[in-house]
């Protein structure tokens, strides 16, 4: 089912008219993207699930403030970005952790990703990508996470409250960092994926 922005707007109108059960449609359509964004931003799945819940509750309570100047998903991402930034500021435990500083156990698991990728299991590759993503500065990670969700530059700029030029520059730098790190730590994996493509 393709769920367009128009349908989002119709559903929002229904929810605002008092039929709150319709909000579940909005959640179902956007939950996977919001959750993935939170996973990228917070680097902790259980924390990301809690954050995603809070983001949808915030969206519900302030739905009347949605001015329809952008897509609902863009507005939702803005709430998600602000929420994740606040969480990271509050939590003293969470810190920017570079790939080099990750625990030995995780690193071994990530380094074993070549074999797992070849055998069809992608757990290692997922872990590796998450760790490498986590090593990016917050602003770059948010831009990269939204791009990975398929958002265009304009939507990313609106979600994060920055200019399109800034999106382009941050994306370029983030990719340079990621490519360098992945090439350094997973040379075989990168070349294998490139060959398949």
């Amino acid at each position, binding site marked *: 089912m393709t769920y367009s922005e128009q349908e989002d707007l119709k559903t929002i109108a229904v929810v605002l008219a008092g039929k*709150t*059960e319709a*909000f*579940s449609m909005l*959640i*179902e359509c956007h*939950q*996977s*993207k919001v*959750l*993935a964004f939170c*996973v*990228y931003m917070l680097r902790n*799945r259980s924390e*990301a*699930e809690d954050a*995603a*819940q809070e983001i*949808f*509750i915030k969206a*519900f*309570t302030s739905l009347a403030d949605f001015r329809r100047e952008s897509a609902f998903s863009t507005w939702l991402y803005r709430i998600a970005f602000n929420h994740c930034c606040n969480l990271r500021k509050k939590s003293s435990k969470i810190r920017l952790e570079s790939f080099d500083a990750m625990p030995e156990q995780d690193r071994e698991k990530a380094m074993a990703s070549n074999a797992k990728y070849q055998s069809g299991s*992608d757990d290692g*590759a*997922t872990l*590796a*990508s*998450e760790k*490498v*993503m986590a090593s990016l500065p917050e602003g770059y990670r948010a831009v*990269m996470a939204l*791009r*990975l*969700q398929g958002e*265009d*530059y304009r939507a990313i700029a609106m979600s994060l409250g920055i200019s399109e030029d800034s999106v*382009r520059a941050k*994306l*370029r730098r983030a*990719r340079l960092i*990621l*490519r360098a790190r*992945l090439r350094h730590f997973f040379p075989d*994996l*990168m070349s294998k*994926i*490139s060959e398949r*493509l």
Partner: protein
Amino acid sequence: MRPNRLCEKIELYHDGELGPEETLEIVGHLASCRECMETLAELKALETMLAPARGANASALCPTVMARVRALQPQSRFEPLFSGCWKAPAIALASCAVYIICVEMGFWSAGSASLAATLESRKESERVYSMIFGIRRPDNENLLVMVLQGDDK
């Protein structure tokens, strides 16, 4: 040597941010530039590796959030019924408090000054009355005593 103008647009091409004319230009350029082909393949590989985070239990999100949304509802449903009801007694109470503080306790200097002026003018009128008629004008209390004592005057 790489033609910079087109090579620098590989990322934009990959992200679908170019117009139709520039896209055609890049497609033509890719056929002849091995470096750009490699860059493009690497960008695609990167995107595949960093594909949206998997394994997070998104399906459990909807029922949990909706349960919380339903829990929020009763408060908001009753809110219009009681909203504003507290305002009238609160305003009345506040008015009484302001009156007591300002007038009764004499904190309102202008009010007490005007009260003093009124009392003074009343005393003055009583003095003039007694000068003219030679008697003190009986006030209500004296009149009441006189009536109770059966004084005809």
